[in-house]
């Protein structure tokens, strides 16, 4: 079977429409991961043993089980308990929760890099705990972790094809539907692969650039 | 002693990018001679040692050990680049002790010393262990043979490094600022060990150091380097006490004031 250019051009717009959903899922999923991850990280530094171990256990479990099964679990079990939402929303939620387990580690590393003296100085100036965290600690902890978060973003982007297994019409799903209908899998699957490659490489280059900028600034 | 020179540098030129480190350098060292090289940092003295140890190649010029070129050899009457085997043969005549010790962190002290004799000279393990134990005894660390390098103090690390270099029985030993990373008191102990070694063997020895008292004690000859050239060359009394060049006087004054 040979590569068929007219066919490839013909299906490209259909696949590109899937990219909108892919990017939507990535952006919203990452937003959720950033928020949840920060919450986990804060629970981990609070001096409460019960909170620490339950947060630890939850993130560990999330990180040690396949995203695919997590997706299946939520996709099939949520309707059973009366929650019926579009598949895309389920997918975004699961992606966000899954990656929050990784972003929490990134936040934690960033927070650990803030010297003890910064907390002490804030205490000496009589800031409240919340003020200290929001105005003193976070502004210092966040810039250095931007590249690591960027890497998580790319990783999540590359995980979005899994959403095709729960009927989300992102790029891979569209490609497979085209393949099933025409029995030509080579063109659609290769196109999807190349699109992923282009975006990942561009994003990696952007992260490398940001990383150098941040290093220079320090 | 034979009358062939131990080491010869002939018209050596070496630069890193635009930065010239050695310029048209000529140097001859007699067998068994102890030569101390002093001078400001970046003046090229460490590069001499690195070139001799084949850690780096000269841009042009010849380096000979016992009359034989390190990098070049004659074949059918023509001079050509020497094969790797030749370079390794020449390298086996030279040993080196580094400023930052460079012990192998994943090998215990005894293995650090036996590794090369077993792998390079093909010595039996038993023989290598026996000799390594002797050497450790000689540097006063007989009880440390099973320690990890990270468990030793700086002075102990450097003494192991000396034993490691000696284990290959080189004819030329290079000492590259071996006490610069050590506390003064510990440095004194290591230098004492080297002085002892110098009187007990007939090895040719080259030193780069900032310890002027040690230089006076050990040197047959002192070279003062400045900007990639040897600008003063003579017995220690002459160079260290009656320097001819203003640049040497200035350097020695600064060192004296610092210590």
């Amino acid at each position, binding site marked *: *079977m040979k590569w068929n250019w007219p066919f490839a051009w013909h299906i490209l717009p259909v696949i590109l429409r899937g990219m909108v959903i892919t990017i939507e899922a990535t952006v919203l999923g990452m937003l959720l991961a950033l928020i949840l991850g920060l919450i986990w990280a804060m629970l981990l530094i609070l001096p409460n043993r019960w909170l620490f171990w339950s947060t630890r256990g939850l993130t560990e*479990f999330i*990180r*040690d*089980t*396949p*995203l*695919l*099964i997590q997706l*299946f*679990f939520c996709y*099939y*079990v949520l309707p*059973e308990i009366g929650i019926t939402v579009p598949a895309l929303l389920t997918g975004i939620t699961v992606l966000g929760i899954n990656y929050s387990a990784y972003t929490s580690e990134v936040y934690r590393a960033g927070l650990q890099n803030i010297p003890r003296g910064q907390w002490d100085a804030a205490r000496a100036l009589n800031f409240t705990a919340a003020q200290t965290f929001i105005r003193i600690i976070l502004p210092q902890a966040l810039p250095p972790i931007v590249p690591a978060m960027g890497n998580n973003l790319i990783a999540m982007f*590359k*995980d*979005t*094809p*899994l959403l*095709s*297994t729960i009927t989300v019409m992102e790029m*891979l799903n569209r490609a*497979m539907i085209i393949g099933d209908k025409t029995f030509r*899998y*080579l063109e659609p*699957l*290769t196109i999807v*692969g190349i699109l*992923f*490659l282009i975006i*990942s*490489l561009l994003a990696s280059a952007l992260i490398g650039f940001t990383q150098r900028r941040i290093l220079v600034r320090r | 002693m034979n009358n062939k020179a131990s080491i010869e540098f002939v018209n050596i030129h070496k630069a890193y990018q635009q930065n010239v480190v050695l310029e048209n350098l000529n140097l001859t060292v007699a067998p068994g001679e102890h030569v101390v090289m002093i001078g400001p940092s970046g003046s090229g003295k460490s590069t001499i040692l*690195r070139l001799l*140890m*084949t*850690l780096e190649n000269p841009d042009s010029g010849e380096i000979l050990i016992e009359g034989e070129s390190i990098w070049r050899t004659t074949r059918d009457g023509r001079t050509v680049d020497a094969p790797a085997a030749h370079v*390794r043969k020449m*390298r086996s005549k*030279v040993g*080196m002790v*580094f400023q930052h*010790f*460079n*012990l*192998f*962190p*994943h*090998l215990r002290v005894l293995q650090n010393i036996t*590794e*090369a004799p077993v*792998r*390079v000279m093909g010595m039996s393990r038993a023989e290598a262990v026996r000799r390594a134990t002797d050497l450790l005894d000689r540097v006063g660390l007989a009880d440390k043979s099973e320690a*990890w*390098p*990270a*468990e030793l103090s*700086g002075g102990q*690390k450097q003494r192991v490094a000396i034993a*490691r*270099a000696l284990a290959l029985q080189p004819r030329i030993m290079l000492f590259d600022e071996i006490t610069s990373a050590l506390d003064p008191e510990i440095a004194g102990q290591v230098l004492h060990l080297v002085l002892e070694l110098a009187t007990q063997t007939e090895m040719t020895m080259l030193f780069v150091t900032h310890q002027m008292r040690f230089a006076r004690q050990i040197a047959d000859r002192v070279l003062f380097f400045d900007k990639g050239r040897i600008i003063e060359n003579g017995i220690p009394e002459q160079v260290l006490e009656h320097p001819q060049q203003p640049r040497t006087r200035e350097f020695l004054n600064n060192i004296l004031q610092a210590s």
Partner: protein
Amino acid sequence: MLHMLPMMLRGTVVTGEVTAGAIVVASVAASCAVAMRLSTLAALDWPARVYIELFRGTSALIQLFWAFYALPLVLPFRPSPMIAAIAVLGLNGGAYGAEILRGAILSVPRGQHDAATALNLSSAAKMFRVVLPQTWPLILPPMANLFIDMLKNSALAGLVQVTDITFNAQILQESTLRNAQVYGVALVIYFIMALVLAGFMRLLERWMKFPIGARV
């Protein structure tokens, strides 16, 4: 609940096989790629770079579908699902492994290379006796993470007819409709497998450990 266990356990064995096979493929692929990347010959360096970027830049599921649906149309034969899955997941992991290994090798200080040269060690001895043994403490923790990622990625094989935990779970789910139970059990099995793998890697780490100081 009990009647689904035999099928899940059979799936567990297959998941173990796919993961183990993929880890072997990944180790070989990563070693070759790094050897090529460290070579001074551009003809060796570039293919390795392309391999690494290609597999790291696209997603494992796309690679798997491509190998399962598109590749057989170009190849003269159709590899079995198991072989295809092991090859793709292995090559995918190998691309990540290569970056871990290369970073560790490049982080060995120049002084170590100098000392090895000064002791006249051959370049093979330098690599295998001095440089590589020092990289173990650096590569084992990220390698443990990579292997766990590969275990989790093996679930994708269930989507291309490999009868692993995921595949069997899907069949059980369709036949019993006990969604929470089936996928809950699957999650727990994967979790236990990951814990076992992590524990094994920690043992290996302790075994390979040597104390390292600031300057030795």
